[in-house]
């Protein structure tokens, strides 16, 4: 209705038209299908529905790609690695802070970076895993007793958990992942029976102590993280050390990230 009137006024009122256009879809929606409750509440519901549909459409597009992608829910403090819509790993977040530069359209860029997909993840410093090359003519027959001369390191030994690392995305967007507090192990269920989501204890846990990096290593890590290159939009996430290490060791390079900021109802 309101739309119709605004159009009826014709080309003279350009400002009114532009205002109507900016709020247009919502107003027209109200005219065709009036909400049951108050106007503002109905509008928020429509906003929420539109927001949900938009995120579903974005996730559907990511799921169709076939490669792993991340879903970062700022409000729920959760970073989830997914593929084809299925959860691969969940990383609970202890702290979330979103930072935008003041100049260079900082706020505009911030709004444009939320509820959208960040592309082309690049981990800094990159995880290095040197390959061992074995020449068949240098191989000696194994010890018949089954004794092993060389025991390769566990992932925790080969790539220790860093204090922090960065993930840079295209368009000056980035994540800074830092070491948070160690979370206590989950307490057993009060009934004494494991719940359906309680992990079954594994047969063998990885052994080997995690060594703290020395000062020289930490300085080189600082340089490799390139902290002097500040991102226009940066999200700082604090994770438990075990989660931080696990994420760092297996972060899929080039993965996309869908940043979910929060439902419109949160504004009320």
């Amino acid at each position, binding site marked *: 209705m309101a739309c119709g009137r605004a159009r009826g006024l014709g080309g003279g009122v350009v400002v009114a038209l532009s205002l109507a256009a900016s709020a247009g879809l919502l107003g027209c929606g109200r005219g065709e299908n009036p909400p049951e409750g108050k106007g503002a509440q109905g509008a928020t519901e429509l906003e929420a529905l539109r927001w949900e549909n938009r995120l579903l*459409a974005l996730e559907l597009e990511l799921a169709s790609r076939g490669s792993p992608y991340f879903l970062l829910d700022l409000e729920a403090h959760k970073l989830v690695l997914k593929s084809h819509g299925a959860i691969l790993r969940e990383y609970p977040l202890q702290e979330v802070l979103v*930072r935008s530069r003041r*100049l260079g359209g900082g706020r505009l860029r911030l709004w444009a970076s939320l509820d959208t997909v960040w592309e082309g993840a690049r981990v800094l410093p990159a995880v290095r895993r040197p390959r061992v090359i074995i020449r068949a003519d240098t191989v000696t027959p194994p010890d018949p007793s089954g004794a092993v001369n060389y025991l390769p390191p566990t992932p925790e030994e080969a790539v220790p958990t860093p204090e922090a690392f960065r993930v840079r995305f295209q368009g000056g967007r980035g994540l800074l992942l830092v070491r948070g507090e160690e979370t206590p192990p989950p307490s057993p269920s009060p009934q004494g029976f494991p719940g359906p989501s309680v992990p*079954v204890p594994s047969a063998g846990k990885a052994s080997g102590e995690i060594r703290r990096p020395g000062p020289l290593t930490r300085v080189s890590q600082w340089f490799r993280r390139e902290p002097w290159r500040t991102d226009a939009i940066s999200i700082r996430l604090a994770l438990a050390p075990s989660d931080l290490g*696990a994420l760092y060791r*297996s972060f899929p390079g080039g993965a996309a990230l869908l940043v979910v900021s929060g439902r419109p109802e949160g504004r009320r």
Partner: protein
Amino acid sequence: MSGEGGLPLVGRRWGRILGRATKWWEAPGEDRRGLGGVPLSRRKVVAGVLLALGVGGSLWFAWGSTTYTPAELVAVRPRSIFSSGTSLGPRSSAGADGAGAPVSRVELERERRRLQAALAAHRPRGAYIVVDRGNNRIFLRKGDSLLLEGVISTGSGAVLQETTGQKRQWVFDTPAGRFTILSERPDPVWTKPDWAFLEEGKPIPTRLSERREYGSLGEYALDLGDGYMIHGTLYERLLGRSVTHGCIRVGREDLRVLVRHTGPGSQVFIF
């Protein structure tokens, strides 16, 4: 903390610096000199300090940033972000925003159901296996529930080069991607490929019977195709280390849980 005269206590060094500055400021014009003996008027000093503050402040503002918590972010976000996301990200083919987008609640709800169904069609039905190569961990999941977390062994990443004959090369990596369990074999027999003999420094046999090895794959093998399998191991002490030729070795108890919950057709995600 305060001194005798009610003034705040400062360090002796800072007190000396403050005293010198006061003396310098109160000195007559000809005695007030800067670095290199250049005469400085009070006006020049004030102008210099103001200029330094201005330049410093501008730089601080330009390079500075604003920080928000998620709650603050939602509170200060403009409404137009929710109502029309035309400037944000890629548009959906479904027209969730922009031209041709559904406008009424009924249409929006219909659209949501359609998108949810399309997304659910991508997800695996029933339990599925997730392999984290970077951490040598295996997970058994069903929907949002985690049924198992275990320690495994994955590909060593080593490269084996044949130096004679065909001069072949093998890279012992566990491949990443989505796989389907093609078959589930109890008490599997391993037919050793050529690289297994080369790696042991033994001649490659010509008879098939000489390639067969019993018991080394544990109680079960879940075939993923292209020679890759999820199977048991005789060497559980090596679990957690990247030692395999591309297969995924699982402990006995964990393997039994996997076999109980999955079967041919189940999905396996390796990342």
